[in-house]
């Protein structure tokens, strides 16, 4: 048997290798620069989807407000890039040179205090992770300690996403308003708009995503992962067994928030701007849809689900600019009706058994496949 890190079984390792091959070899070879950049953009949503698998699939906490965390990460990165693009030299036509253009339009004459930390890149990176985690901690403590869960929690997260959008739009002097923070140019002097930069950023993004997947796999296979599943199935029993349910819920919610924020920061780098349209209710729900299409119990499914839905979105809208939403709607209905466990469910129920059968015929080793099935049952608990 192949030696794998303790938190992955052979199947996980194979799946990870497959994702790595797809992202790091197949896409860069098969796609031109423009399409590759698009895939890079899609993959930033996959960070959120992986986080949702942990929160929703394993922890049983459905968050309809992941856009908030995606946005916090994205805005953090955008603020750094915007400050770099707003050097005194670049903004000398403004009445106050040296501040972002939209602040000047809104009669601000100096940089607001909360923008100052974003002059430093290392500090920005820390804040991209810390701020969403702190927010999630705050929200999580307020909710889970009071045993708010299920639908109520989902609605509150949705409201938070809506509030964030309204706040960003309303405070346009500080945030750029509806337009968002646009016209981002360089990262420490490195022009991120060039094709070569986009190419490099794609790989950075893909590798980070692999890292996030590994992190999710690690959590899943640890004792923590078991407790999460137990909690999802019967919260009270876990509580009566002496565990602090709220703390586990807060942890997994924070984890999902940090994943989403990393995705947001990578989005800003690859797309070149950040706007409130990525923070609100619609994108938050879309991210849940990506997860559902991929299969909410499958970490790898989340990546494939995100890619599939976004590919469909792009190609349908290119071919049928007036009708594409109908096609996309049909796709979702089909998935929900026929494949409630998403792509991962299709794989597990149809593809995997036939592969196993082939291997069983080949190897004629009665013990090995049995082990696999047992492991699979353990790592993919039934709903």
């Amino acid at each position, binding site marked *: 048997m192949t030696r794998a890190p303790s938190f992955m079984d052979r199947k996980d390792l194979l799946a990870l290798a497959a994702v790595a091959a797809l992202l790091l070899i197949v896409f860069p070879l098969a796609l*031109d*620069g*423009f399409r590759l*950049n*698009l895939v890079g*953009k899609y993959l930033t949503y996959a960070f959120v989807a992986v986080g949702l698998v942990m929160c929703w699939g394993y922890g049983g906490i459905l968050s309809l407000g992941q856009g908030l965390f995606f946005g916090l990460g994205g805005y953090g990165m955008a603020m750094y890039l915007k400050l770099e693009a707003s050097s005194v030299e670049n903004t000398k*036509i403004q*009445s106050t040179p040296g501040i972002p*253009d*939209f602040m000047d*339009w*809104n*009669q601000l004459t100096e940089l607001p205090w909360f923008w100052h930390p974003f002059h430093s890149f290392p500090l920005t990176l820390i804040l991209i992770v810390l701020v969403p985690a702190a927010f999630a901690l705050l929200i999580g403590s307020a909710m889970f300690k009071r045993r708010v869960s299920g639908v109520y929690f989902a609605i509150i997260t949705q409201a938070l996403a809506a509030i964030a959008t*309204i706040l960003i*739009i*309303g405070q*346009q002097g500080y945030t750029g*308003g*509806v*337009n*968002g923070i*646009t*016209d*981002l140019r360089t990262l420490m002097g490195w022009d991120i*708009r060039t094709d070569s930069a986009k190419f490099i950023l794609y790989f950075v993004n893909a590798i980070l995503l692999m890292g996030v997947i590994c992190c999710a796999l690690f959590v899943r296979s640890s004792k923590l992962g078991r407790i999460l599943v137990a909690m999802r199935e019967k919260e009270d029993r876990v509580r009566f067994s002496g565990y602090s349910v709220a703390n586990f819920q807060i942890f997994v919610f924070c984890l999902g928030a940090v994943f989403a924020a990393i995705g947001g920061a990578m989005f800003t780098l690859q*797309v*070149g*701007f950040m*706007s409130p*349209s*990525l923070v609100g209710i619609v994108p938050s729900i879309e991210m849940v849809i990506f997860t559902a299409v991929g299969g909410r119990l499958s970490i790898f499914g989340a990546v494939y689900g995100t890619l599939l839905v976004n590919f469909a979105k*792009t190609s349908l*809208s*290119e*071919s*049928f*600019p*007036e009708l*594409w*939403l109908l096609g996309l709607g049909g796709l979702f209905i089909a998935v929900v009706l026929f494949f409630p466990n998403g792509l991962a469910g299709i794989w597990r129920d149809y593809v995997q058994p036939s592969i196993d059968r082939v291997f069983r015929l080949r190897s004629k080793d009665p013990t090995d496949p049995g082990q696999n099935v047992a492991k699979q049952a353990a790592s993919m608990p039934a709903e």
Partner: protein
Amino acid sequence: MADQDDARHSRLRRQLLMGMAAAPLAGLLPKVAFAQAPATSAVNTTGLAVTDTEVTVGILHSATGTMAISETGSIQAEKLAIEQINAAGGVLGRKIKYIQEDGASDWPTFAEKAKKLLVQDKVAAIMGCWTSASRKAALPVIEQYNGMLYYPTFYEGLEQSKNVIYTGQEATQQILESLNWVVREKGAKTFYFIGSDYIWPRTSNKIARKHIENFMKGTKVVGEEYFPLGHTQFNSVINKLKLTKPDVIFTDVVGGSNVAFYKQLKAAGINLEKQTLMTISVTEDEIDGIGGENIAGAYSCMKYFQSLENENNKEFVAAFKKMWGEKTVIGDVTQAAYLGPWLWKLAAEKAGSFDVDKIAAASPGIEFTKAPEGYVKVHENHHLWSKTRVGLAQKDGQFKVVYESPELIEPNPFPKGYQ
């Protein structure tokens, strides 16, 4: 690829059949045109999608989502202009082919599709964007890949790009003349501002406030309020209006909020025949939703109204209705969108090339005498010289033009003294 819809195909087919009678004659015309067409290598040195017979442009608006209702008119106008240009022999002897992309009312999508049009399709120009947010999202992409955007909407100004021709008004063009008019004609002294909360209303109101406070005598702003996009509860501000009794309510509420706002004004007993209301955000398109009876008596400042009495406009309205149906209405932005393909054609012919740099350089000074709004000219700053008009809303959803600036107004996207 996205093509025209079926209704138009059948209409086109009918026209083609009718045209068969004149086929022998018509057959000669394109030949003459093509004989004059300059070589592709000469008119296209930067690898755009130009062949010996065709040139490709992009149309990039929201065909779906909340903005579709506003942007559909622009799509229709651009397709009409392209068809008319093709019927008249095309541009530099080449027919215009268009690729339509859907921005889906989503700003990142605008950036993505703009990039697709420029990088994959190599379009020679893009007619598109509507909201400022969509333009701000697409602009860095368009500048990076050196595209040419024709942007139709009246907007807040504070922008100027080599790669954009702004065919709508910037804020000072729309506002200043009409404020002068309302003070002169109505003796207005006090103004109350109500707007949607984003960059365009805020900037427009800032300019209006500076004008009222610094450039006119004895006038002042007594209130200023903003509401989120899509807001539908205006009762509190209507109560304040009743208390402060401003001479003029000056509004830039956009989109669906308009419907609620005017209905609630009427329900609250504010009669627009007696209370002067001036809007810079309601065109014939919006009245379609608001209902003529709810807004009759309000004044709107635009550069174009469907009811304009001139030969160009009569032809334009007739052609538009023939192509898109009797019931369609034509608002200010729709007309501005119609200008895009024409101004591009004129610039390409002046430059003798489709190269973006040459078109950008040739654009200043381009005059379009067949413009439905009368006559327009491209300024050095890539905005248009155009007139300002004030229309009085009628019950039937049209405007009666009550004022027209005597001269073309110079575009001034970075107005001194208004910042």
